[in-house]
């Protein structure tokens, strides 16, 4: 299964944010969207999720226009984790994650639904918090709950908008590592907007570098993430080093 962007334009009011993007995004890959603030990453993720209708051009899911697929059907294929979260107090972690099964389940969750929820909680290390109210958790724990909800939705594509921003270093790495395994083991797709270029270098199979609503470069991380491309897109001077664990970027000055 794949998502195709065909000359995709998107904007708010008269301000155009995305200018004619073309790309083909396949399952079985972690695809990182990189770019500075305001470059259009979140808008692109929301448009690919079907939350925004393109001003022109198309988002195709397996050749079919996303807007022509019913919301109920779309919810089984795409799960979305937003940048900022809202939640209802007094909702347990279990019920929050169970909401991810809503597109699949009837009135009561089946044994399968509960197993999937339990597995999602385990993957995100939340088993012991299942009966806790979500308002009693820290920001990072809550973020893990919302990722677990997306996991329990068992979609074909995960669309994550900065899901690791509130997580500490350990959980950032663990979350990315687990998502990498899920993507490759289950042949699903993860399209993830990131600010941490090192996470993208380490876990992305493919990187799309966005600048001013246009794709500046795309390809394998080692091809796209270079000192000159980062200077061009972010206006930051960097050094890329390599050791036995992989490639790493160090930012040392802004231009």
């Amino acid at each position: 299964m794949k998502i195709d962007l065909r000359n995709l334009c998107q904007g708010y009011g008269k301000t155009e944010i995305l200018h004619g993007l073309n790309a083909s995004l396949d399952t079985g890959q972690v695809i990182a969207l990189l770019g500075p603030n305001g470059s259009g990453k979140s808008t692109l993720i929301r448009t690919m999720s079907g939350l925004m209708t393109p001003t022109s051009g198309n988002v195709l899911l397996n050749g079919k226009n996303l807007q022509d697929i019913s919301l109920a059907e779309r919810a089984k294929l795409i799960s979305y984790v937003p940048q900022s979260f809202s939640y209802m107090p007094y909702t347990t972690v279990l019920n929050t994650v169970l909401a991810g099964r809503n597109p699949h389940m009837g009135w009561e969750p089946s044994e399968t639904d509960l197993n999937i929820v339990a597995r999602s909680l385990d993957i995100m290390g939340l088993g012991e918090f299942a009966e806790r109210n979500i308002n009693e958790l820290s920001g990072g724990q809550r973020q893990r709950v919302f990722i677990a909800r997306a996991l329990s939705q068992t979609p074909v594509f995960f669309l994550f908008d900065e899901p690791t921003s509130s997580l500490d270093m350990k959980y950032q790495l663990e979350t990315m590592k687990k998502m990498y395994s899920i993507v490759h083991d289950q042949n699903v797709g993860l399209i993830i907007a990131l600010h941490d270029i090192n996470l993208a270098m380490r876990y992305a199979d493919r990187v799309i570098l966005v600048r001013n609503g246009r794709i500046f470069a795309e390809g394998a991380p080692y091809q796209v993430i270079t000192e000159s491309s980062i200077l061009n897109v972010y206006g930051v001077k960097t050094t890329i080093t390599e050791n036995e664990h992989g490639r790493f970027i160090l930012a040392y000055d802004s231009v």
Partner: protein
Amino acid sequence: MSQSVIILGGVVIGYLFQAGVTALKYLSDDGALREITVWLMGGMWGASWTSVMLLLPIVLVCFLVTYSHSKDFNSMSGGDDVAKSLGVDVEKFRFRSLIIMTLCTSACIAFTGIIGFIGLMAPHICRILIGNDQRYLIPASALMGGLVLLISDSVGRVIIAPAELPVGVIMYIIGGIFFVYLIWTGQGRRIE
């Protein structure tokens, strides 16, 4: 729509309707003025089996329709974007829910007058007691609303017996104390 816009919208609409009520009072004769005043205080004087039979089908249909969408209400707790990504047509759902709630509330109020705070207190008490799963919260809130009204009305009937204090007055007192308590204990921060 932001929360502040909703709150300001509510305040503005409240003033507009207040202007309408004031105009009605001004234009009414003595008998009608008394009836308006009593209705605005809210009470159970109009309670009769005829009014129950008239209200029952409306309330029952509204309840069943709302209850059947419990899952969608659960999805909505994650915000509009998440609800939409979970398959809820947010705009349609919100509009339909508003119509149903308005129909149900206005039908009840037509018989009882304005009795405040029940709609705020009952769900909040239930949320504290049983959590936020709407499959249980909606019926529990409906029962709790009835229970709170029953207790308040009973208090109103005995507190200055043989005279009777309108239940609306009792509700404002209890509701006020309840929310001051929530704010005082810090739980008010969780009212969203």
